[in-house]
C-alpha cells in the first residue's frame, strides 16, 4: 500500500559553495527516505538561494521575511504559506532562526504544524557563551571562553591567561583563528558587525576536530547519531570532504550532553581531540549540519528519523553506521528561468507537481 504524501517545510535553502546551509541536504535526505513519501516545501530568506530552484529537491519554494523584520510579520507570512501548503512538519535549519521558531512552537502546534526543536531554555544552555558550564555538567572538557565587548581585550588578554593564537567567534556563527592582537581586533569588528555583541574569545586547542550529528528525543535520550571527520576544508574551514567514523568516546560524550539538557531535536556536536589526549567540546549547533546527507548515504537517515519522531511514530532500533563512508562536496550551476526568479522575488513562490 502506498503511503500518503507528507508535506514537510524545510528552511535554509542557501547553498553557497564555500559555506552551504543544511536545508538542501535535509530536503535531499527526505526525498530519499525509504519509509516516507515527502513533499518538500523549501523556505528561504534570499532569492539567490539555489535550493529554491531545484525541482528534484523542493516541490514548492517560498521566501520568508528575515526574523529581524519582526515576529508578527514572520508569523503572518508563515500563516499565509501554511494556508496554501498545509505544512505537517517544519524543520528549521539555521542557527539564527532557531530562537524564533522555538518561541513560535506553541503557535505552530495550534495550527497543526509539528516541529522537533529545542525549547528556548535548552537553546540558551548550549549558547556559545555558556558552553563551558554545560560541558562541565556533562563531564566534558571545554576550552576557556570569554565574552568580549571591547577590542582592548585582545591587547590585554595575556593577563587573563589567553595567548595567541586564539579563536574569535560570533555568538551565532562565524569563527576566525587570530594569530596576533591586530588580527583578533579585525575579526572582532567584522563578527560584531555581522552577529552583534558579545564576540567570544576562545582558547585554541591544538588537535583534530571530529563532529557528530544526532537527534535527541526530549527525554534525555540520543535516538541516533552519525559521526564524521572532516578530511578536506574550504578556505572558511568548512567541510569540503569528510568520512564517517566510529568513536565511542564522542558518542558517549554526545549522549551525556543530550541527557544533561533533555535535548529535543537535531544537534551537531563539534569536539576537538586535543594533543593532550583529552576531548574538548567546541560547539553545539541546535540543528542538522550541512553534511547531513552523509547520514542518508551511510544508511541512517537522520532527517527521516526526525520526521517520524515529529509524527509520534514508534522509534525503531537505528542501524549501526559503518565507518569509512565518504562525501566530497561540489558546486554546480542551476539554470533559473526569469519567470521562476520573478515568482520567488515577488513572494508568489514556486509550486510544482501538485
Amino acid at each position, binding site marked *: 500500500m502506498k503511503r500518503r504524501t507528507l508535506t514537510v517545510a524545510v528552511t535554509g535553502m542557501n547553498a553557497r559553495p564555500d559555506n552551504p546551509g543544511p536545508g538542501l541536504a535535509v530536503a535531499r535526505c527526505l526525498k530519499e527516505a525509504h519509509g516516507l513519501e515527502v513533499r518538500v516545501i523549501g523556505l528561504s530568506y534570499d532569492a539567490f538561494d539555489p535550493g529554491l530552484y531545484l525541482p528534484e529537491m523542493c516541490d514548492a519554494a517560498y521566501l520568508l521575511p528575515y526574523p529581524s523584520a519582526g515576529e508578527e510579520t514572520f508569523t503572518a507570512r508563515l500563516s499565509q504559506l501554511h494556508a496554501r501548503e498545509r505544512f505537517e512538519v517544519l524543520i528549521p535549519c539555521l542557527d539564527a532562526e532557531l530562537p524564533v521558531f522555538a518561541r513560535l512552537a506553541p503557535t505552530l502546534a495550534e495550527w497543526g504544524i509539528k516541529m522537533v526543536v529545542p525549547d528556548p531554555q535548552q537553546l540558551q544552555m548550549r549558547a556559545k557563551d555558556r558552553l563551558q558550564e554545560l560541558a562541565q555538567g556533562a563531564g566534558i572538557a571545554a576550552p576557556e571562553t570569554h565574552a568580549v565587548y571591547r577590542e582592548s581585550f585582545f591587547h590585554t588578554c595575556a593577563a587573563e591567561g589567553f595567548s595567541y593564537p586564539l579563536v574569535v567567534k560570533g555568538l551565532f556563527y562565524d569563527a576566525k583563528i587570530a594569530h596576533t592582537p591586530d588580527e583578533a581586533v579585525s575579526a572582532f569588528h567584522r563578527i560584531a558587525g555581522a552577529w552583534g555583541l558579545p564576540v567570544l574569545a576562545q582558547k585554541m586547542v591544538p588537535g*583534530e576536530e*571530529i563532529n557528530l550529528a544526532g537527534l535527541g528525543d526530549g527525554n534525555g535520550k540520543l535516538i541516533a547519531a552519525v559521526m*564524521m*571527520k572532516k*578530511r578536506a576544508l574550504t578556505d572558511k574551514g568548512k567541510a569540503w570532504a*569528510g*568520512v*564517517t*567514523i*566510529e*568513536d*565511542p568516546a564522542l558518542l558517549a560524550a554526545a549522549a551525556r550532553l543530550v541527557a544533561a539538557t533533555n535535548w529535543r531535536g537535531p544537534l551537531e556536536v563539534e569536539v576537538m*581531540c586535543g*594533543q593532550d589526549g583529552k576531548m574538548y567540546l567546541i560547539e553545539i549547533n541546535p540543528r542538522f549540519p550541512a553534511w547531513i546527507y552523509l547520514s542518508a548515504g551511510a544508511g541512517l537517515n537522520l532527517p527521516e528519523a526526525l520526521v517520524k519522531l515529529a509524527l509520534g511514530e514508534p522509534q525503531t532500533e537505528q542501524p549501526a553506521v559503518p*565507518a*569509512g563512508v565518504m562525501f566530497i562536496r561540489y558546486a554546480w550551476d542551476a539554470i533559473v528561468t526569469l519567470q521562476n526568479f520573478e515568482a520567488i522575488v515577488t513572494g508568489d513562490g514556486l509550486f510544482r507537481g501538485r
Partner: protein
Amino acid sequence: MKKPNQNKNTTAVLAALDRLAREDRLAVATTALISEYAQVSEGVMFRHFTSKESIFDSWIESRSGRLKVALSGMAAGRAGLLRFIADQIGGGEALSLLCCQHADCALQRAHLDELRAEARAELVRRVAELPGLPLGIKTESLVDSLWQALCRAWKDPAGDEARTLVHTLPWEAEAVPQQTFPPTHLVERLALSASGFVFDPVAGNSFTANETGIAVLRMLQDGAEEVSELVERLGREYDASAVILERDVLDFAARLREVLR
C-alpha cells in the same frame, strides 16, 4: 673540642629534621617529635641546642653548607650536572633544604627562600650552558621541571623517577619516545587493504603503505611487539639484510607514530 657523643647526638637530631622534612612534618615538628625521631632524649637534646629555633638554625646552616659546596664544586657540562643530581639523590641532606615545606618560622623562611634563590640561579646558569636544549622553552622553565623532578626523587629515592634522573635530564626523557610503535589499540583498529590503503575508523584518517608496510602492520596486529621479531619474520619473506630491514622497520615505526596518535 666536642666529645664523640656530642657529635653523634647533634648528627642524629639534624638527621631527624631531614626525615621530618621528607615527611612534610617540619611545620608541626615539636621538640618532643624531634627527640622521638632522633632517638635522643629531650634533656640530652637541650644540652646541645638552646631552643627549637637553634635546632632549625643549625640544620639550615649545616645543609646549606653542603649545598653550597656541591653547587660550587659541580663540574661543567651535562655530566657534571648529572653527577650533582646523583650525589644529591644518593646523599639527600642538601636536597632537604631545596624541597622541604617552609619551616614554621618567618626568620627561617626568609633564610630558606634566599638559599633557594641562590641555588636556582646557579642551576639556571649551569643548564643554560648545556647544548641541545629544547627549542622555545625558557631555561627557567627547564630548571623548574628539574627542581620538581629532584624533589620527587628526594621523596622517593628508590622510585623509577629517581633512577631515571641520575642519567637522563627531565627534558631529555620527554624527547625519547616511550615505545617504538604506536600503542597497540591504535594499530589493532586499523582496516588494512591489500592495495596498501589503510583506514583508521575512529580518527577518520587514511594513508597508504607499501607491501612491506602492510606486512608490518599485519604482524603488529597479530601481536608482534619487538623490532627484532619483525626483522626476523620479514627476513624470511624478503631478500634483504637484517640491517636494512631494521632500518626500514624503525623508519616505518617513526612514520606510524606521526600518523597514529
